[in-house]
């Protein structure tokens, strides 16, 4: 018997394509955000609010991933933003290859920001780099304060965490302080923003964060 040393990352192939994607996005001076959350936390609502708030100031393109239906793409279509729907037909996450094919359908030169709405899931998308510049994780107050500790890997890799449905706080036992402490414990660098996509609270802070990143991208790219 002999031992063959491989020392190969299991997701090496995905990482390689992700690096290609990132290079393309940076060349085009395009800011790319991977938007993640569990189902129903408010990813699509956040996208709608973002498009509403930012459309006069920036050209935003959207890639939406869903296991089935193009409902999300149709919701976005109303805002006349270029949108590509990826239907994964069962797969619980997007991978870099799917994103590579999807962005071929967009005119990247005409965009300032590309937001990739991942499949609603806090587990599977964690390890799949898509080539994004920033990861944004949405957590809603209806989900429970312990979410970050239950899905540590997801929150560890987030650049920004949105605590959404803040208007529902009086009806839940969610503790914003406790959630902030556990997120910072996993990831001291994450920016935490409280929003309500229903009332619009905090959306301007979120858009400010986004615009700060566009400027940073243009300066460094």
């Amino acid at each position: 018997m002999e031992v063959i040393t491989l020392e190969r990352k299991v997701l090496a192939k995905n990482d390689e394509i992700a690096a290609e994607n990132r290079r393309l996005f940076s060349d085009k001076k395009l800011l790319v955000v991977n938007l993640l959350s569990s189902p129903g936390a408010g990813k699509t609502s956040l996208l709608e609010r973002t498009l509403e708030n930012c459309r006069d100031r920036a050209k935003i393109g959207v890639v939406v991933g869903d296991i089935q239906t193009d409902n999300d793409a149709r919701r976005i279509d109303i805002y006349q933003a270029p949108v590509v729907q990826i239907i994964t037909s069962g797969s619980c996450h997007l991978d870099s290859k799917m994103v590579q094919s999807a962005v071929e359908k967009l005119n990247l030169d005409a965009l300032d920001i590309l937001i990739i709405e991942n499949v609603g899931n806090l587990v599977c998308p964690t390890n799949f780099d898509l080539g994004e510049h920033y990861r944004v994780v949405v957590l809603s107050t209806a989900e429970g304060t312990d979410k970050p500790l239950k899905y540590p890997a997801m929150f560890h890799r987030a650049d920004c965490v949105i605590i959404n449905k803040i208007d529902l706080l009086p009806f839940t036992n969610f503790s914003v302080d406790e959630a902030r402490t556990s997120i910072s414990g996993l990831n001291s660098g994450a920016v935490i923003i409280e929003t309500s996509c229903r009332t619009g609270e905090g959306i301007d802070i979120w858009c400010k964060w986004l615009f700060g990143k566009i400027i940073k991208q243009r300066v460094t790219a």
Partner: protein
Amino acid sequence: MWSYSQIETLKPLFILVKILYIVVLKSILVFEMHELGIAQQIFDTVLDAVQREKVIRIYSININIGELMAVDAESLQFGFSILIEGTPLAGAVLAIRTVPIKALCNDCGAESVIEHYNLLCSRCKSRNVTVIDGKDLTISSIEVDTNGSHNA
């Protein structure tokens, strides 16, 4: 009636049907959970190495799972055992080593082993730390018989 030679000529067709059946079955299974997707990636990488190195028998696949990857070892084992049936990797054991999360403090320079995902320097209690280990999923090696080693 079919003659024996006619049945013989149909043999490749039977094999093709069997392969198709396995492929369809597996593609359904692969999408059912997170760990099956990862099992598939391991499978592809190892199969590639097995074919390249002219392996005639595979005993074990040694993999390291960083705790930060949040991969369930039991589910991965289960997924992998289904994937390898009827393939050149059949019979291979997946030997999983869990790698604890280690962090380097950017303030005092100490290295800490992180427990319960609480990223904190154990010496100065700073949260300004960088994860240096336990964040990857790697295939370290495979234990095999190759054409060469078998004859020797």
